[in-house]
């Protein structure tokens, strides 16, 4: 299991810079979460590590080798898998084919074995194996996207907002699967808007704002942080206060 170190990473589109001079470290076997507001650059960061966006400067070092600038196919070959925000499934193809294609670089036998493991992890996918991916519900699609990434047998799994649009029950299921994967030794990078849940499973976290890291530390420390609570960890009391405020006007 490798370490991932990001040094001085610079990413952008067209004229704009989205990520500026970013440093990040992920130790083998850790689950790191990245929190941040909309537009902070979390998705761009993951895409940059994955090679979908070419870094303008900086290094991304995986197990001692700099992978910045490699094509996504090559990065997959090095053992990084991404579950993107929009899932990017093959909608017109059945579940089984989606999974099999995830194992494209594996031999048929290896792929078959990993597919069984994925079905064990997500039994509903086994039930729906011949259904076209586009006909699955949101939660099932998310499971398929994760399953497809697992077919790569990755050493590092990156997830971009896996809980968006999912029912609370499903979110718990997925987070428990993530926890299980972590306990099996998989290194995980989790970008998540549900900060409370993310900090529950993560070892450490980074907070990203406008392309820069503004806060980092062990998850317990972050959960207790004042500034963070306000922006990311609000609760019912905040809503009640809001209602009172509006009623008063």
């Amino acid at each position: 299991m490798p370490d991932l170190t990001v040094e001085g990473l610079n990413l952008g589109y067209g004229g704009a810079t989205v990520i500026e001079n970013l440093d990040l470290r992920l130790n083998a076997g850790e689950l790191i979460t990245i929190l941040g507001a909309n537009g902070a650059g979390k998705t761009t960061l993951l895409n940059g590590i994955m090679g979908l966006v070419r870094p303008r400067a900086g290094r991304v070092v995986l197990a001692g080798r700099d992978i910045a600038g490699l094509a996504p196919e090559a990065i997959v070959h090095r053992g990084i898998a991404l579950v993107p925000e929009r899932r990017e499934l093959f909608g017109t193809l059945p579940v089984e084919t989606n999974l099999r294609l995830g194992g494209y670089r594996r031999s048929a036998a290896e792929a078959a074995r990993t597919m069984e493991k994925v079905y064990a992890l997500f039994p509903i996918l086994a039930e729906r194996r011949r259904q076209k991916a586009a006909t699955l519900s949101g939660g099932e699609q998310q499971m398929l996207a994760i399953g497809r990434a697992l077919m790569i047998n990755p050493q590092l799994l990156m997830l971009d907002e896996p809980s968006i649009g999912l029912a609370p029950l499903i979110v718990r299921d997925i987070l428990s699967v993530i926890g299980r994967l972590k306990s099996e030794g998989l290194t995980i990078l989790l970008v998540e808007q549900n900060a409370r849940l993310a900090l529950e499973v993560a070892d450490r976290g980074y907070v990203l704002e406008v392309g820069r890291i503004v806060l980092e530390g062990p998850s317990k420390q972050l959960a207790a942080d004042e500034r963070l609570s306000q922006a990311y960890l609000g609760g019912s009391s905040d809503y009640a206060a809001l209602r009172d405020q509006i009623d008063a006007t």
Partner: protein
Amino acid sequence: METALFLLVDGITSGAVYGLVALSLILIYTVTRVVNIAQGEFVTLGALSFASILGGAFAPLAPIAMAGIAIFSVADAVTLKADLGARFRLVAGRTVWIALIAAVSTAAWANPGSYTLAAIAAVATTAALGPVLYRLSVEPAADASPIVLLIISVGVYMVLHGSAVLIWGAEPKSVPPIAAGGIVLGPVFVAYQSLWICILSLAVMAGLYLFSERTVTGQAIQAAAVNRVGAQLCGIPVSWAGQLSFALSAAFSALSGLLLAPLVTAHYDMGFTIGLKGFVGAALGGIVEYPTALIGVVFVGAVESFSAYNVSSFKDAVVYLLVIPILLWRNAFRPPQEH
């Protein structure tokens, strides 16, 4: 009755040729989302190459293809972010391809008059152009809208068309059939060439179908078109998929060109109308489903034959006019797949 059968056979033969072209169009479309206006030119290039190789010339397209591959190899080796070993392997692999092309061309050149070798050389050298064209004109435009991709392919058409005249001149060249003569099936005489056309076309179509639907590589290639990012995340080399589709597509069209050439003579203008009719057939059949495209092109071929016989000056008009009611009918009962 005899006339009708004769026209039917004629129609099926043309249909089979258009079918190969339609298949090529569909292949490129399914993988790259490009409607390849230049497709007909591969037919021309294949036919003309075949004619000159048979006549003793060294495959005219070979140097161009080899140069193209060589240039891209150097460019890739320089820009590739990898260690020396990987770069070396890349160049070595490409060199093998170049050597193959050279070998095939030389073999054909050393044996002038050998039908098989000439055919192989013509198809191989035309096919080798495919990936080069893909990398030059399609890959850099991956994010462009479909209509822009279409106009780019028009530009490619212009380059290929002009080049054909430049290399071979404007004179048509005659080409012998695979086997002269034919057999008599009932009241109708069927040329051997027609039979070969139908057999080979069907074989190619069947092979391609099996490849796309039954092998992982074939499905990976299709997946690259369904969702490019998703395919990249699976480690599917999308560029390679595009190149392969262009290579196969050029090969099929070249094959149809050299099959057709004995019937219509090889000349620089043969590609455009064939490409257009192939396109009509493919689109009628539903541009992503080739079993039905087969029906579409046979229909086009048949209609063309019959109307050529009856109202020759209007034959093209009839084909194109009939397209609209057919589209309406298909749209009502079997609409095109959404993508």
